[in-house]
């Protein structure tokens, strides 16, 4: 790999100056650092080069690392996902961007049939990161707001990561790039630039291990298991419930969806005896169903109430604000479900 002169744009690295960064900037920093650390890391995707990507996650990178390491591709999710697989066979660590995660479905065959099975088939590891902006609450309509994690949750061989904080986002993207398994890395676009999520990140090289959930908020009265944007919706709900009902809600942020940190979930349920699962994805076949079943298998005797879930409705993601608001889980939905559980 030819040595590159690294010209880092002013806005790319802020932690050194002790400035807080957004979740988006945290991801950019994480990728940037891994690009510097490991010459086998390279990026492919649509419009990620000179333009820096639709959301500017890769801004400045092509100038810094060159056109052989930051590659603008044709509009072809099967093509560049397959190319990532081939490069991974040759010892590279490709990081590919789905411009919107909705378009990952175009590469479903390549991801589930080819990439996820490669190690098992004896064709070797596939250290690929497939990342992209996901989620709603931004009036993006049916094809720019989806949460397709459940479609891949059922595929052994994949890992799925979905951070909710800037610190985790950076630590997890770095862990994903270093991981020897294929990782789907979902970035919630409603969280990308939220000022409330700005954080001063550690200066040192840190990772957040894939597969470990995090206690986002300690509590004793009931557990909310959630991830991504609904961590923050759940936090808002927990504050309402504390103020108005005197309830101490524990929030578990899964951070990694596959593999599930079952121990963290069971531990919390055994402590609070009540479980509410909240996710932004639609209900039927959603991840909440799997979590509920595992808790039923492992901690049934500890439950004082039925397991409840708050999810999106079983519909495509609608566009108009009243429709999207009705479709997606809102803070008041979580409050309502938690009150029902607490009173059971």
């Amino acid at each position, binding site marked *: 790999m030819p040595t590159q002169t690294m010209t880092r744009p002013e806005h790319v690295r802020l932690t050194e100056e002790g400035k807080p960064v957004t979740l988006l900037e945290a991801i950019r920093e994480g990728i940037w650092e891994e690009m510097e650390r490991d010459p086998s890391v390279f990026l492919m995707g649509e419009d990620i080069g000179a333009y820096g990507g639709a959301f500017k996650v890769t801004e400045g990178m092509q100038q810094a690392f060159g056109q052989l390491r930051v590659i603008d591709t044709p509009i072809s999710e099967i*093509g560049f996902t*397959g190319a990532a697989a081939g*490069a*991974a066979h040759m010892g590279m660590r490709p990081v590919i961007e789905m411009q919107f995660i909705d378009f990952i479905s175009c590469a479903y065959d*390549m991801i589930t049939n080819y990439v996820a099975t490669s190690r*098992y*088939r*004896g064709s070797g590891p596939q250290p690929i990161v497939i990342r992209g902006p996901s989620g709603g609450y931004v009036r993006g309509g049916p094809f720019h707001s989806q949460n397709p994690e459940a479609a891949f949750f059922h595929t*052994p061989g994949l890992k799925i990561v979905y951070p909710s904080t800037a610190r985790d986002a950076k630590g997890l993207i770095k862990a994903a790039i270093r991981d020897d398994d294929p990782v789907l890395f979902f970035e919630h676009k409603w969280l990308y630039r939220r000022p409330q999520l700005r954080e001063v990140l550690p200066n040192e090289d840190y990772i957040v291990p894939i597969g470990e959930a995090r206690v986002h908020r300690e509590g004793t009265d009931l557990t909310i298991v959630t991830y991504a944007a609904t961590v923050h919706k759940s936090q808002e709900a927990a504050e309402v419930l504390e103020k108005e009902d005197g309830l101490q809600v524990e929030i578990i942020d899964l951070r990694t969806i596959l593999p599930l940190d079952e121990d963290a979930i069971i531990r919390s349920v055994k402590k609070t005896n009540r479980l509410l699962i909240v996710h932004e994805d639609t209900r039927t076949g959603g991840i909440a169903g799997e979590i509920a079943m595992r808790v039923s298998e492992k901690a049934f005797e500890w439950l004082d109430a039925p397991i409840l879930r708050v999810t999106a409705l079983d519909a495509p993601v609608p566009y108009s604000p009243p429709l999207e608001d009705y479709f997606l889980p809102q803070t008041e939905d979580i409050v309502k479900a938690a009150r029902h559980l607490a009173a059971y």
Partner: protein
Amino acid sequence: MATKTKATPQAAIPHGLDRGGLLEMYRLVRLTRSLEEKLENLFRQSKVVGGLFRSLGQEGESVASAFALRRRDDGTGDMLSPLIRNLGSMLTMGATPGEVVRQYMAKGDSPARGKELNIHFTDYRRGFIGQISPLGDLVPVMAGVALTFKQRGEDRVGMVYLGDGATSTGAFHEGINFAAVQKLPLVVIVEANQYAYTTPTRLQTAVKSFVDKAPGYGIAGESVDGNDVLAVYGAAKRAVDRARSGGGVTLVEVVTYRRRGHAQHDNQSYQPPEDIERWAATNDPLDRYLATLTSNGWATADELAKIDAEVDAHLENEIRDAEAGPMPAPESTLDDVYASGPVAAPWTRHEPADPKLA
């Protein structure tokens, strides 16, 4: 069996080949034919797990195209990804008959350890990546392999095989288009064997010749008689040389005919018997190549018979050893799903129960 007869070359050997190369290609074509015949015997004895796929009539193009690659056994050579009818290509790259038989018998000591079937297996050192069954997918994958050669400034080439059916897939289009715009060192071999399972080419595409697709991608294209070993070698060599010298992608159409069904269980009712008979009688690649070698004085019948005998003896040994191999241990089912070893199966954490039961 040994003979002292030496051929006296009468005609110049083309494409930069030498007599050793010509005889090695003959050995490989013969090995492919004979190995598949042996596999057919094993299939009839119910020793093959699942289906058996013959490449009868296509052995010559498989061997000759792969022979054009720089073949190494230390992971520094060119790479190819074969299709189900490219046993010859894999043997050319150095796959052994024993590995192939173990694969077909689903043995625990097969290259894919019983996880994958027939010739779907990989060896990076020798330079081949096993295909998967969704067709066309290896075009973008091999584009990625070629991309890495370009990124690292390595003087290596990728070759991907597909049948005429796979040219209809989105993966074919996306992979070849990506490779074309990036000017990657990739050779795409389209084996036009007239049928995709039962579907004839006229229901697969409206183009007269697959090479007509090449200009649409801005790449070079060449069509060649797929049952002429030397012609295929020449076309493949030109494409490989173009790729290696920075000339980008070439689509090589290899015109041939599938003389057996899609798999052993397919009775070929949709193929006119007279077509099959005609290709067998007048256009068999092994017969044609043998005639070419002897009529040009590049080899004697005795020399070729000696190679035949050595191939047969070699196969006997390899198959005997392969048959003696163990079946995989059931517990290895969970191996290699993830890098960390056995798949996390939390529902079995407390007791060693059947993982299929909650």
